């Protein structure tokens, strides 16, 4: 089946991986710097800031092409999104349970869009790299 244009996902060139990988340490350094400079920058703010930065890093990594983007890589990518979604459900459920038993409620401040984006993209990336690792190791 030919891919319809509405379903096509534009991908970054492999060069963008370098930018994505640089975002991880930059976010931490910038977050700490903001904590020092801004008085009202709480540890919670720092956590959310790092989640947001790292989520962005993993989003770019997940949208970067491999050097040789053939059908096996595309099938790994599809599987990684499915697996990543599945792991995110379990990861979030674990956080709900930990939050429930430690804070005694479901109205936890642990959750944020940044955390969910971070977890989803981390798991997608991990599932993709795992499949690549498996294919390279007989």
């Amino acid at each position, binding site marked *: 089946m030919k891919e319809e244009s509405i379903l096509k996902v534009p991908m970054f060139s492999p060069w963008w991986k370098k930018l994505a990988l640089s975002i991880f340490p930059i976010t931490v350094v910038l977050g700490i710097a903001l904590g020092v400079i801004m008085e009202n920058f709480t540890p919670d703010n720092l956590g959310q800031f790092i989640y947001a930065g790292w989520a962005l890093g993993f989003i770019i990594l997940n949208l970067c092409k491999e050097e040789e983007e*053939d*059908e*096996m890589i595309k*099938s790994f990518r599809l599987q990684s999104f499915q697996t990543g979604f599945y792991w995110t459900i379990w990861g979030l459920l674990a956080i709900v349970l930990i939050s429930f038993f430690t804070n005694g409620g479901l109205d936890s401040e642990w959750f944020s869009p940044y955390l969910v984006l971070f977890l989803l993209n981390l798991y997608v990336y991990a599932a993709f790299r795992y499949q690549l690792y*498996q*294919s*390279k190791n007989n």
Partner: protein
Amino acid sequence: MKNTVKVERAKKNFTQQDLAERIKVSRQTINSIESGKYVPSTVLALKIAKTFETSLEEIFQLEENDWE
């Protein structure tokens, strides 16, 4: 599914890289197909068969557990 890609490749004296370049995939993909870790699409399987000038069934055979 089992396959005889490695055998056919040896008959033609192709390296994995040679075959990969002919059918426009990575060498890693050829390696994964040969080791049974990756089952190629129909299009790629047909390209492999055409490269080796043989039929699809000569190269790819179903196994018992493919019916489960």
